[in-house]
């Protein structure tokens, strides 16, 4: 099992390639969308690169749960409801959703995921 730093370096390389950002921009606290400019299609590209770099299999919606965020069961008036928050927490144990919970509008979710969340996600996959 690689160390946290080793995982971070590989995640950083994947994000530099997928998003065309500079290495120094990819800090652990950088948000994927707000700071690094990731768009929805980039998440698919990132999935490809992480799978290759770490030899893991990432199912659709695992890294970015677009199905939860677009479901009428979990979203009312553009805001993720209590059931939706529970679904996100159970699907994404690697992500820190504390800040998102304070204002769970779907639009805000894009700015929730950080590089550190990506590293924790890969760590959890490698440990599984």
């Amino acid at each position: 099992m690689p160390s946290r730093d080793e995982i971070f370096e590989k995640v950083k390389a994947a994000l530099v390639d997928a998003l065309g950002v500079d290495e120094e921009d990819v800090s652990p606290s950088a948000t994927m969308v707000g700071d690094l400019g990731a768009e929805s299609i980039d998440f698919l590209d990132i999935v490809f690169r992480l799978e290759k770099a770490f030899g893991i299999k990432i199912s659709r919606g695992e890294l970015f749960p677009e199905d939860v965020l677009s479901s009428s069961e979990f979203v009312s008036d553009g805001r993720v409801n209590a059931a939706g928050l529970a679904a996100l927490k159970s699907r994404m144990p690697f992500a820190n959703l504390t800040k998102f919970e304070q204002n769970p509008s779907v639009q805000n979710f894009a700015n929730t995921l950080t590089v550190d969340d990506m590293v924790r996600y890969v760590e959890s996959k490698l440990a599984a």
Partner: protein
Amino acid sequence: MRWFWIDRFEEFVRGRRAVAVKNVSLAEEHLHDHFPGMPLMPNSLVVEGMAQTAGLLVADAIEYARRVVLAKVAAAEFHFDAVPGDCIRFEAEVLDLKPTGSLAKVVSTVGDRTQGEAELFFAHLEPGDGVPQLFEPQQLLRWLDQMHMYDVGRDEAGQPLARPDW
């Protein structure tokens, strides 16, 4: 203008690689508008040729079950401009293929010189809401025939590529 940026396939191995050619001609209208007085094939359209070569390679591999669209030019570098009289050869290779998307590398050459290199990312969209039908099946098949795909195509076992019964 017709959106055909390859003239013919020269090689086509299902799910792996394809080679297509595009002859650049002074008769093409767009050459005259890009830089008046200096006709050249814009590299944005070279990328289209690359995307058609690799996109059809991918679409065939998933049996046209989803709409294959160029979602992202992950990287692209060009070394010189293609001009009238040049024959551009696109060599596409599938790097990764999944139900939801694919990654391909395409190199364009003119003679023995590398003209450009690109990494293209395709999204495979499920037909349905918000995803228009891009071609009528018969229209697509006619285009593939015109490009000699089934004359040169081979499947994974090296057998002639079966022409779909649409």
